[in-house]
């Protein structure tokens, strides 16, 4: 699926010296590396403001948005984007978290050796690029990984128990089971470490893998040869079931959905491929439409956007091609794409039905 338009560029600089540490870009017309003078100016305004007790957060022109983020007075991240989307500051935070994950906070704050750090940071590029070119379309927005929770029942309980014991044996509390197309099926608690970790990705059966964040021990050899067969061998059947989960029983008329669990930092989304008629948004553009809808709704009604309408329970936006609908709850946000001219009184019952289908009691 082609990514919707807009270039995105992430700059990382050493706050003190203004030395560029790395620059990652995606999308847009192929452009040469940003000129150093520009990078210097962008950094200089941030430093200048900080000196006067003013933190520069962002700027906008009709086509481009910029965001600055200072981390521990040692790292400055700058993002430039010409794509629609919510606040870029979350992208900066996610990128910094990725750097912390790989290198550890101590390596980054304060910077001891810039040249060495520059080399070491290369190991984060994979993660950061994944944030910029999000697989499921949401990573870069700081919404959390795409997920596809298993329906409640014995298989889920069994696998959850296995996952926790497996992670415990690997001396960590952080692990998840990835199902079809890399979606999180099950997970242990949600948190972010501040010391470097190993990220282990092990494929258990075709289409299903397990991911672990763990320390240097136990060695990989031990995990592969002993722990995996011991914990996952008995549940191969259930694992295979995760590879191709059945589609959610969505009510008719829903073209696409995105469910954001605000507390767990997870998203759940799906695009219905059918229902392509005249005047209805074609399936290949529904993902982009969902993103536009999120960009529209989030700043207005989510607390982190600053704005807001306390007490708002539902909102919708009617467009010529479709109707976007958002169910607003303190703990979650459910976005729905519906055919154009969807009747207003039906929106809430429909949204509640979708929510029930996605989160069976």
């Amino acid at each position, binding site marked *: 699926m082609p990514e919707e338009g807009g270039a995105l560029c992430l700059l990382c600089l050493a706050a003190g010296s203004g030395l560029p540490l790395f620059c990652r870009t995606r999308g847009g017309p192929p452009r040469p590396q940003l000129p150093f003078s520009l990078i210097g100016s962008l950094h200089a305004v941030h430093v200048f403001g900080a000196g006067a007790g003013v933190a520069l957060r962002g700027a906008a022109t009709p086509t481009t948005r910029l965001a600055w983020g200072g981390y521990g007075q040692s790292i400055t991240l700058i993002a430039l984007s*010409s794509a629609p989307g919510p606040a870029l500051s979350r992208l900066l935070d996610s990128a910094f978290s990725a750097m912390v994950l790989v290198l550890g906070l101590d390596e980054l704050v304060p910077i001891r050796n810039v040249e060495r750090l520059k080399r070491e940071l290369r190991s984060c590029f994979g993660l950061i690029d994944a944030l910029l070119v999000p697989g499921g379309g949401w990573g870069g927005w700081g919404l959390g990984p795409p997920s596809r929770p298993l329906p409640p029942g014995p298989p889920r309980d069994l696998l959850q128990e296995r996952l926790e014991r497996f992670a415990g044996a690997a001396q960590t509390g952080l692990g998840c089971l990835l199902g079809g197309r890399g979606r999180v099926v099950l997970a242990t608690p949600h948190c972010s470490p501040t010391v470097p970790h190993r990220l282990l990705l092990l494929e258990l059966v075709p289409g299903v893998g397990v991911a672990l964040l763990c320390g240097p021990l136990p060695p990989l050899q031990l995990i592969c040869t002993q722990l995996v067969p011991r914990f996952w061998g008995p549940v191969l059947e259930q694992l295979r079931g995760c590879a191709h989960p059945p589609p959610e029983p969505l009510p008719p008329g829903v073209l696409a959905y995105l469910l954001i669990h605000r507390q767990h930092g997870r998203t759940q989304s799906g695009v219905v491929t059918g229902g392509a008629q005249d005047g209805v948004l074609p399936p290949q553009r529904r993902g982009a439409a969902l993103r536009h809808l999120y960009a529209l709704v989030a700043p207005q009604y989510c607390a982190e956007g600053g704005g807001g309408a306390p007490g*708002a329970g539902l909102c919708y936006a009617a467009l010529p091609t479709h109707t976007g609908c958002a169910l607003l709850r303190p703990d979650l946000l459910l976005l729905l794409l519906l055919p154009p001219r969807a009747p207003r009184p039906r929106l809430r019952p429909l949204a509640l039905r979708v929510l029930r289908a996605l989160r069976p009691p």
Partner: protein
Amino acid sequence: MKGPRAPAMFGAGRYSIPRPVTRNLEDLDSVQSVLLHSDLEPEWLDGVQKNGELFYLELSESEEEILLQNSCPEMPAVNHVRFRENEAEVIQEGSRKERKYELKKLTKILKKKNLLPKHSGKKGSGSCNVHSTGPTSILKHQSAQKMGVIVQQKYKDVYVYVNPRKLYSAGEDEQHRLLEALVGIVHQSSWSSRRAEKQGRKDKVVRGIGEEKLVVHGLVPGSSAMKMGRILIGDALVAVNDVDVNSENIERVLSCIPGPMQVKLTFETSIFEPEGTSQQRYKQAQSSMNNLVRLLWGEDGTDLQQAIQDVPHIVMFLTMKLDSETSKDEQEILYQYPISEASQKLKSVRGIFLTLSDILESVTGTQIISSSLFLCGKLVQVVYWKESDKLLVIGLPEENVPLPQLRNMIEDVVRTLKFMYSSLDSAFCQVENVSRLDHFFNLFFQRALQPAKLKSNASPSAQHYDTCSALFLDNLPGLRWLTLPQEIKMEIDTALSDLEAADFAELSEDYYDMRRLYMIMGSCLFYKGYLIGNHLPKEDLIDIGLYCRHYCLLPLAAEQKIGQLVIWREVFPHHHIQPCEDSSFTGYREPEARYFLLIVGLRHFMLCVLLEAGGCASKAIGNPGPDCIYVDQVKATILQLEGIDASIEERLDSPSIPPLSCADWFLPATRDKVESSTTSPILSKLQNTSKSVTTPASKRSLFGDSSLMTRKPSPTRNSGGPDHGTEGPAEDESSNPQSVVDQVTRKKHTLPNPFHLGNLKKNLSEKDTELLNTIKLTSGPENTLFHYLFLETMQGIFITPTHKEVEQLGGSIHPQLIENFYRCCLSIRSIFQQSMRKEKKKKTGSGISDFSEADEDLDLVREHGILFECSPDNWTDAKKPPPTMNYWVVGRLILHPKPQECYVCFHDSVTEAAVELAFKLSFGLAT
């Protein structure tokens, strides 16, 4: 009529001092023309500035008394010259010369109506620290009679420390070198003589030409006179240590001061005061009710400013082109306001603004719109407006003004400034404008940061309504329209047309057999801040509306009775100054003309007139001040329309069209819960309603109409009940009225019932039933419309319920709903604006290639709605969950033929699409 006049001819009772012979005829004629009609000498004449501008505001006498009662003896600091300079003004003598009889007609009208604009008490009203000795003043005497007290000439003593060894400046004017250098008082004799031409009747009457009075024209910065804060521009120095002084002997007297010492300066205050300084007396009036008036009079409003002192806010006009040779500190700042600690921080990072604007333009090829900063624990949004090599920057905290709104505000500021000064450059880059801009931006920030303080509504509910709607309404590209019955509209239109035709009496060209001075381009009439008549093209209306809004004239007229308001200034309506493409295409070109805005306010009326000089009228030369004839004709038009105010009030008092419901009616009140043991309000069914309508209390509270008391039970009600239950969601079941008994026994809490409303209306007569059904916007048996706003950009107007209508609804939940409504309107409108910007970009084809064509229509939001759930605040019953009521706020954007925006707030049970509401509203507007 020429030649010296005996004092008696001017009215012996008023003039007690013989007037010396005037020397030239020119002078005499102008004086004559004024004095001939001395009854009617316009009070505002003294307020006219050198550049012809006038901003004269006088409250009605009752309002002034309130102000004076609250006066406090504290004398605030010096800067009272902010808004109106005290410089001698040049009134076009020629324009008056041949119009000796010009005012007679109006005089008659006025006298007949007994509506002569009265000299207010302000001129003679007591200033503190004054003692009453000396000769009786002409003006003072007059106003004293009005006040019923004999007030005599005011003098004040000011003790100033002087040091002959340390001189402040070597004055260029040899004549008054010491006065300026030693004391710090600037007196320019040339000014006085110019003044004398106009004020001859005053100055020259009192003193001989040779010994000119020592009027304070200015104060030397840093001098003791300045530091004292009590010497005011316009005061006249009459004695130094009890020695009488004048322009002849002052230097000699001052030169006698041997060394550093304190001297007593005696000032005659207020006798020659132009409007600007006479107003300063109002500084003492610290009534919080009149913050707005004080701001408008150009007073400092120190307490108002203190309240926002800690809020970071700033406006700066910066130049990006720096003169490298003179590397003066802060030379890039052409203008800034305010100077406070919080804004100092923003000022210190102006480098960010300049750099960002520069680099973003070079990188993206587009202008910077905004940037966000975090300082003093607040997120501050900064918006930019770039014009050639200058940059206008405004910063305000996000919590006070959301970014989309701030973007609208800077656009409005730029448009208003261009309307007033033709360009940003001419507004900001002229030294004499600084004090005017300070006043302008003082108002701007006061409106942005504490709108509530500027509204002095009588009722708290109206105040609340104003406060929560201010932010949204202030930036709508339209003016608040009041729908009026056809015959009244006709009357207004006729009166305005008559004025605009300008073909009678002094306004006609035949009268003097010369070209008229101005052509009236159009006019618009306001009543209590509502637009009730408009003959202006939309763009001009918006320009004038922005000006009025900025100077808070509309709320002023709504809440305070204006004794007299006269505003005159040259304006630069961009619609005329910069003819659009279309007009040049058709071969028509706007004439090279100059435009003047004349606003006259009387009581609750305000009439704005746009005048054109040049074109088919004669060319304007110099800076013409307000022309009496035009002012008087506009005033006469208002007076002619005075009769309709009763009908307008009636319209304002009558139930709203379209009818509205109060949100509280859909919720059982909590107090009923406690009191009524018989039935639970939640369970009480709709059957109650036919009984409950018979209680007169509830009816009166809404309609005040006794004829409604004789009504028969409703047949429609019975049939309507079941329908209602089936079609509405579950919440509807609880949307029932209070019990009847409560309404009768507890008058305090009487809330009109929604079903009463419907029933009452329905049962009046067959005709009325039809009427209600046609005016009611919502379908179904009950009216479920809570609030609405309809913006029609073709005509530049919007309609929304009036203050009275909202007040009548009352309720405890309803105000929250209104607050929510306007908050949502803000965000919905920002989405619409985004949508329209995208649309525009697509049309002009300047879309950035980064966006694929297909993606753009994913942003074209046509309708946006938000569903809210609310429940009573003070729910006391722990056993049952509080009842809830769901309502929608829906905004719709209609792009064709011209953009229209419609915002409605209604109960969840409404089934029809908002678009239908929108269309119904627009039809309602058209009629």
